[in-house]
């Protein structure tokens, strides 16, 4: 009786082990297409989180999900070649040049509102993905420079074109000149 019970238990255990192995093996072979949550999270961490949507997806997380599903890794202009290099390393893919049809990689800029011209329409506040613009209806708005990702998304909605994208002004030996071009 005990022998039979032992045999049955052993068979069940072996079967379970075999199934487990199959699942693991399947996941391993299928590669990127079956990467689950943690992989998306790791890819997302490499992306610059500007939430600018230049890649054609609604934000960094959707693009990370798309990459996990096989999308090209060269669609992120804010990240530039550095992000491509890190993605290539993470996913063990060959490096590729940035797809400039989505935009050029530019040095970091921040939005600056020309405050006397602001009419207080709140449209830029609604467009900002990181809540970096403060203001109220019919009152002047301003940008929290430290939180601005430089995504450009507030520039188009502005009905009076009072938002400029400017290079980050920094302290130290700086001589800001007017560029006559």
């Amino acid at each position, binding site marked *: 009786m005990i022998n039979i019970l032992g045999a049955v238990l052993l068979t069940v255990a072996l079967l379970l082990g075999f199934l487990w192995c199959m699942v693991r093996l399947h996941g391993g072979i299928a590669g990127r297409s079956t990467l689950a949550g943690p992989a998306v999270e790791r890819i*997302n*961490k490499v*992306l*610059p*989180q*500007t*939430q600018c949507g230049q890649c054609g997806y609604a*934000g*960094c997380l959707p693009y990370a999900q798309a990459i996990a599903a096989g999308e090209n890794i060269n669609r992120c202009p804010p990240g*530039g*070649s*550095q992000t491509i*290099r*890190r993605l290539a*390393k993470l996913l063990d893919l060959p*490096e590729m*040049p*940035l797809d400039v049809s989505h935009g*050029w*990689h530019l*040095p970091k800029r921040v939005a600056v509102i020309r405050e006397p011209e602001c009419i207080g329409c709140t449209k830029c506040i609604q467009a*900002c*993905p*990181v*809540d*970096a613009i403060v203001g109220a209806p019919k009152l002047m708005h301003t940008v929290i420079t430290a*939180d601005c*990702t430089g995504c450009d998304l507030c520039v188009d909605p502005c009905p009076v074109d009072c938002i400029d994208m400017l*290079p*980050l*002004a*920094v*302290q*130290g*030996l*700086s*001589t*800001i*000149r007017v*560029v*006559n*071009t």
Partner: protein
Amino acid sequence: MSRISRSLLIKKYIKPFLFRLAGKPGWLSPIYALPGGIVPAPNKQVSLQHKIIGMPSSQLPLPSQLILPLKQHQGDDAVPVVRPGQYVYKRQLIAAAHGNGSVNLHAPTSGFITAIDFQLAAVNIRPQPGRPWHQSIDPRQTAIVIKTDGNDLTDPELPLSPLEVTPWQQRHIDELRQAVFEAGICGLGGAGFPTAIKLSASAIKTLIINGAECEPYITADEALMREYADEIVEGSRIIQTIVGAQDCVIGIEEDKHEAIKAIQSAIAGLESANHPLGGLPVVKLVLVPAIYPSGGEKQLIRIITGIQPMSGQRPSDVGVLCHSVATARAIFKAITDAEPLISRVTTLTGSALRNPVNVEALIGTPLSHLLQFAGFDPSALERLLVGGPLMGYVVDDFETPLLKTSNCLLAASQQDIQSVKASSVPHRDCIRCDFCAPVCPVKLQPQTLYFASRHQRHDSAVQNGILDCIECGACAAVCPSQIPLVAYYRDEKALIHEEADCGESSRWQALFEKHQQRQADNVVAVQQRKLEKLQDKLVSIAEGENPGKEAAVESGSPVTHKSAEQIKSEIEAAVARTRARKAELLSKADINKDGSQ
């Protein structure tokens, strides 16, 4: 190994001691021994056969175009102030310093701007995995391209700088410092730190002019000291005046005999001339042992002053300032001739060149132009390095321009590479022989760093001081397994800096998630408010009031024609719809929450 150790011992301790006892000139002040170091074959004589050849000259004509990256220094990019198609004169400002630690950029010769766009540039260097000796060319660099017209014209209407009219001794210090800033000078020794920032340091006791060019093959500074010793010494006095240093020391390696003689006679000439600044202590010459890497900034400071800047400290924090001889000469030219930094002396050498020589080339000259001039033999080339064999970077594209920081162009053959053991064959495993630790000039444990870097253990690498590694390559040169150790360190350092950069993006991510959550909450709250309103109406209908009255008066809608029952059922249906919508939204929000967690 034992032979290296013996020669190191003699060079480091015995020779300086005996020479000081004998009272040899240049050895009179005490020097301190550098930890570690190696004595590689110098290979310097080949490129010192001729004098420095200027550009443009009959021998070395102008290249057809110049490529000038906006960032040739540490710090932010300069901002272009010219347009494509515009004609620029020699010395004209084409990109202005903008932001933190940025420097100006000037047109090295006259011509038309053909483009301001993304060009290959040998900056932002980082080795690629699997190709550790190669630098990855980063196409992000914006560069200004000038098509030269061959006339080399200076703007005829350019007014004379006040510094050209009045001798520099009579100008104010701030004016001198501003002139250095305007001239767009950054450290010419290799790191490219903006010189104007260094000159604004205060409480400097000792100024060291670095003439200890210790890396094999490179002779640019040595040639400069032989031919322009007067300008270097004068430039040193200018720097000394600006920073107010008590002592000014020119440190030269003992084996550069002709350069030592030239500097000595220049100093003597300065002393004998009735100088307006006679009150200041004179420039002093100190000889240092010819050990690699005694020419490193912190290494030379330690040898000459005995002061060791701590980890993370700048030399100016301990009252010492170090400039290379090339920078001193550039400052001299900027102050006395108001000439911006538009050319530099660079060494063209290596066995793949038939005529190794030092040239004073314009910044932005394509490397291919210089190689062709020096008799380039592509069949002998193993690797083209910008910089020396130990610290240089491999360049694949010969159209890469010469930068302000490029002090040497080494067209290395297999034999050149072998001489410093920087072989391209796959390296063998670390056998823990511990040859590397005693040669490290920063007293690190190279093999510990190697394992930390190889397995990307960032904490361990930082704890073991990888950020203090000066990437001199002494450890790699003595490694019997020929491990390109420095390449691993560079890779690891880049990764550590990347990790540090992630702070900003994770904050943005958190802000974005909050924003999304707030938006979802907003939608639910709006539905909630609608639901409450409808329920209020329902209650008022049940109490027998005519709900349509006020509404009908306001909007003129045909509500009054409906019976109370009709209205009631419509409202109930609306309530049900809103409830369903709200439930759906809530469940969606829950899913989002789960997904983000």
